[in-house]
């Protein structure tokens, strides 16, 4: 198992959260703060150890299926120097390529246009089949799904295929913050058992704490050592890191005021490598 540099990882996660708030505030439009803050540690871990977008011929791939966290992806790409600070600050501005939902741009690691939910897994299957045809069976595709997104029926079509064809190239990560646009997922459309959902299709599922790097490391290590398709169910908090956004669904898509912006920055700056 990897020995983690906890301090470094936490510093990266903190910078990504600051990027999210700063570029989100800069666009002066409502945006998806809470969905983005929910999966910061997941992306930090992936881009620290598993994803290198500019090494395209043999590299692993990351597909953001929950396009609502595009702001997290851009903020992460900036932190790992795949886009510049100037590009990041064009987020959600009129005509920007760094748009509200991800727009296909494989050169900087945006492997799929996203926004319409439930479509990332099928796209990932196509890539996995391509890798098999090209005799690159060891390449992995990490697909980040939102828990709410799994309401979409196409997700089940894809899970059925992944399990039936034992596509070990695919590693699903569910950002399980237990919320969606209309509130708690338990009241909108409850998925009774994530373990059963995946195991029913022949996909191995590992549960972890999605803001804890040791727990994420443990789950990703298990996933990598598994010779079958797998899923990581990462329990997270929607809006993590900014107290007034945490578990508050008003922040699914909302405009930050100047006062709220300053408060969010103050809170994030005060976090000293401990979430």
């Amino acid at each position: 198992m990897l020995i983690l540099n906890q301090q470094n990882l936490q510093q990266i996660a903190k910078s990504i959260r600051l990027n999210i708030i700063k570029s989100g505030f800069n666009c002066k439009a409502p945006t998806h703060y809470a969905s983005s803050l929910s999966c910061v540690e997941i992306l930090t871990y992936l881009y620290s150890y598993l994803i290198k977008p500019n090494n395209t011929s043999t590299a692993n791939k990351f597909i953001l299926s929950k396009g609502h966290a595009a702001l997290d992806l851009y903020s992460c790409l900036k932190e790992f120097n795949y886009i510049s600070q100037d590009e990041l600050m064009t987020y959600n501005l009129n005509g920007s390529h760094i748009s509200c939902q991800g727009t296909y741009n494989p050169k900087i690691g945006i492997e799929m246009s996203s926004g319409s939910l439930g479509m990332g897994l099928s796209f990932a299957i196509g890539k996995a089949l391509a890798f098999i045809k090209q005799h690159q069976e060891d390449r992995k595709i990490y697909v980040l799904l939102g828990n709410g997104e799994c309401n979409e029926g196409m997700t089940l079509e894809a899970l059925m295929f992944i399990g039936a064809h034992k596509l070990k190239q695919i590693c699903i990560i569910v950002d399980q913050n237990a919320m969606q646009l209309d509130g708690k997922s338990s009241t909108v459309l409850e998925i009774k058992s994530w373990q059963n959902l995946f195991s029913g299709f022949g996909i191995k599922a590992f549960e972890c704490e999605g803001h804890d790097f040791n727990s994420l490391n443990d789950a990703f290590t298990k996933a990598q050592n598994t010779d079958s398709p797998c899923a990581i169910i990462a329990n997270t908090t929607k809006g993590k890191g900014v107290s007034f956004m945490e578990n508050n669904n008003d922040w699914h898509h909302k405009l930050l005021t100047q006062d709220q912006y300053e408060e969010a920055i103050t809170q994030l700056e005060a976090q000293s490598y401990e979430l």
Partner: protein
Amino acid sequence: MNFNHQELIELTRLGPHAVVGKALTEFTKPFDNTMVVCADSIKLTNLYDFQEQFPDKIVNVGIAEQNMLGIAAGLASEGFNVFAPGYASFLSARSFEMLKSSISYMNLNVKVLGLLSGFANNTMGNTHYCNDDLAITRTIPNLTVISPADGVALYTLIEQLKEFNGPCYIRVTGGIGSQLVYKDDPKLEIGKGKILQEGDKIAIIACGSMVYEASRLCRGLKKYNLSPTLIDLHTIKPLDEELLHNICQNHRLIVTIEEHYVQGGLGSAIAEFRAKLKNAPHQLMLGAKNTYYPGGTYPYMLKVHELTSQNFLEKILQTIQELEL
């Protein structure tokens, strides 16, 4: 191109969709970048020979057309030229969003073949009839939309699509007993309409199965001393505006004929073009009625929807009289 014409005639008699498997098998090379993705539609597409010769180039996803098009897009994003044949109804209306967001938005190399479109699904009824796929696909940016006239046109088109870059929707109409329009390689050029007969006053523009019906119509009009121009407008998007410009300048009546609702199809595309012209000729738009009639055999449905050459003849003569052309 060399092809066994007799064999194509026989296949087309089963319905033009029956040539898809043959064309894909013949035009695929062991080390090329072709992939075929289908949704429990190997039998429908007659892909058994393809499957036997290229078992690693075909993926059957089960009855899941949305997943099918998502997978096709993923394969194309890694450099494959993907052919995706299946029932037109389920690859257009049901999977509209995947055509839009997974394939066309990312401008990926996927050729979606919508088979048994129009009323070709015989007695299967209104869930399987597909008279809205041109309307649906025509709205999608980046997507090229083609409706070949017969099995020969479809066969030669598939060879061209091996080299064509970008997403396409190919609408395949015609059923059991289909006749051939083309006796030889029509040398179709994607985006360029084909003039089958030059005439005056009336221009008949048709696509898909209705090109054959329109050629019968032309023979019928001859008896009334009318010699119309006849065009196979196989590419509905992008429109051959240069050709249409000439046609509109030199004719007084444009007749559009399609096995598709009048709303949103070939006729609509031409009406949109005509709207930009000064002194545009009149247009008679012929197509399926926007009604759910009870189902029936293919010839029966064409009759019910007044899609026979005799129906067209009567309507044209009536229009000529009304407009005093």
